[in-house]
């Protein structure tokens, strides 16, 4: 603490008002700008949700899968992803902590575990994206650009059920609007659930599709998705993609740092501050995920 100021004399440098190194300070400034970028993304996501409150997809109807388990398990998989990222944050703090104590072997151990956590998260996200892109219910796009779903009376069903094919047999399906209308005519217990979640009768459904239907949407891409409003898919790809790219670059940087630790670069330098700086970035990635988790999957 050297905060003595002599008045009448210009500051000649040498003091550190923030008691932090240049590198650490710059990492913090970068993280502020990055936080503002993510706020802009999540804010625009909020804009669309406030613009389309009734026809926005319900998250627990979209993210319902868990690897190797059948049936609906809303939230479980993202909860696991959150746990993986929190865990890798903990191993990162431990690595930073042992860095302060100059214990090279323990830094290597905890840094390696952090990298493993990062890869596990990336793998989970790839699986999640795969499922999101493939979809499993199918839907029909309309002239007003709202997405309607196939239902069996007042229960959600799927285009695959209506067309009597297996949606997960690995083949590429394609249906036209007329295929769906013909099937609806032969199967009176199937009907349409509209975008604001009300159910039409079978005859109303056929009439609605003849007048409004444009194409059958299976899965999701940047143009449209089977879950609901177009912006939902675009926000999903953009925000989780941007976050995933942060995780990916974080893992790359962690690997570079780990190599340096093993080579003894920081041992020779006399401090492990580089581990601390990368740690800041890694925690920030965890921080962003906490918000993505809340606003994409919970709210």
């Amino acid at each position: 603490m050297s905060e003595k100021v002599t008045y009448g004399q210009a500051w000649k440098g040498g003091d550190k008002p923030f008691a932090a190194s240049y590198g650490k300070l710059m990492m913090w400034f970068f993280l502020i700008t990055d936080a503002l970028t993510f706020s802009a993304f999540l804010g625009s996501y909020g804009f669309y949700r406030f613009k389309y409150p009734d026809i926005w997809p319900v998250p627990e109807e979209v993210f319902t899968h868990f690897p190797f388990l059948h049936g609906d398990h809303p939230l479980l998989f993202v909860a696991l992803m959150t746990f993986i990222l929190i865990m890798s944050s903990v191993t990162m703090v431990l690595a930073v902590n042992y860095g302060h104590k100059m214990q090279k072997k323990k830094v290597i151990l905890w840094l390696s575990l952090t990298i493993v956590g990062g890869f596990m998260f990336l793998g989970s996200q790839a699986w999640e994206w795969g499922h999101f892109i493939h979809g499993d219910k199918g839907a029909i796009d309309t002239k007003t650009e709202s997405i309607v779903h196939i239902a069996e009376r007042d229960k959600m069903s799927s285009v695959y059920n209506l067309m009597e094919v297996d949606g997960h047999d690995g083949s590429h399906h394609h249906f036209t609007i007329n295929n769906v209308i013909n099937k609806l005519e032969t199967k009176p217990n199937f009907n349409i659930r509209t975008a604001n979640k009300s159910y039409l009768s079978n005859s109303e459904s056929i009439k609605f599709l003849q007048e409004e239907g444009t194409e059958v949407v299976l899965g999701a891409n940047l143009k449209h998705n089977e879950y609901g409003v177009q912006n939902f898919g675009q926000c999903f790809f953009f925000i989780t993609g941007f976050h995933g790219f942060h995780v990916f670059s974080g893992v790359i940087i962690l690997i570079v740092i780990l190599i340096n630790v093993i080579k003894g670069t920081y041992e020779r330098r006399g401090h492990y501050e580089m581990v601390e700086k990368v740690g800041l970035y890694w925690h920030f990635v965890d921080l962003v995920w906490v918000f993505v988790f809340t606003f994409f999957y919970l709210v």
Partner: protein
Amino acid sequence: MADTTTNSNWWIWKVFWILLIVTTVEVVLGIIKPGFLINTQFLGTKLLNHIFIVLTIVKAAYIVLSFMHLGHERKSLKWTILIPPLILIPYLLFILLTEGGYALSLMH
């Protein structure tokens, strides 16, 4: 603070448990969705959503102040980093969400 960096690791595991418990509470609330929290509207959204947002901010605070060590940095550094986002982000969100509601009203 010297005691948190040189001594034991207990505080790391303490924060870990807090983050884990808060996340578990969020997930459990998200799955069971208690009726009275869903049906009560407050400030334009469900009461449950307010609970989620508060819990999220609690988690964010623990990550920033403890894991990122900002709580133990010098006061000037701490506020230099915290004040700009704390002003700009709520401001941006206020504008975007208000505009979202306005865009909805234009469609009818």
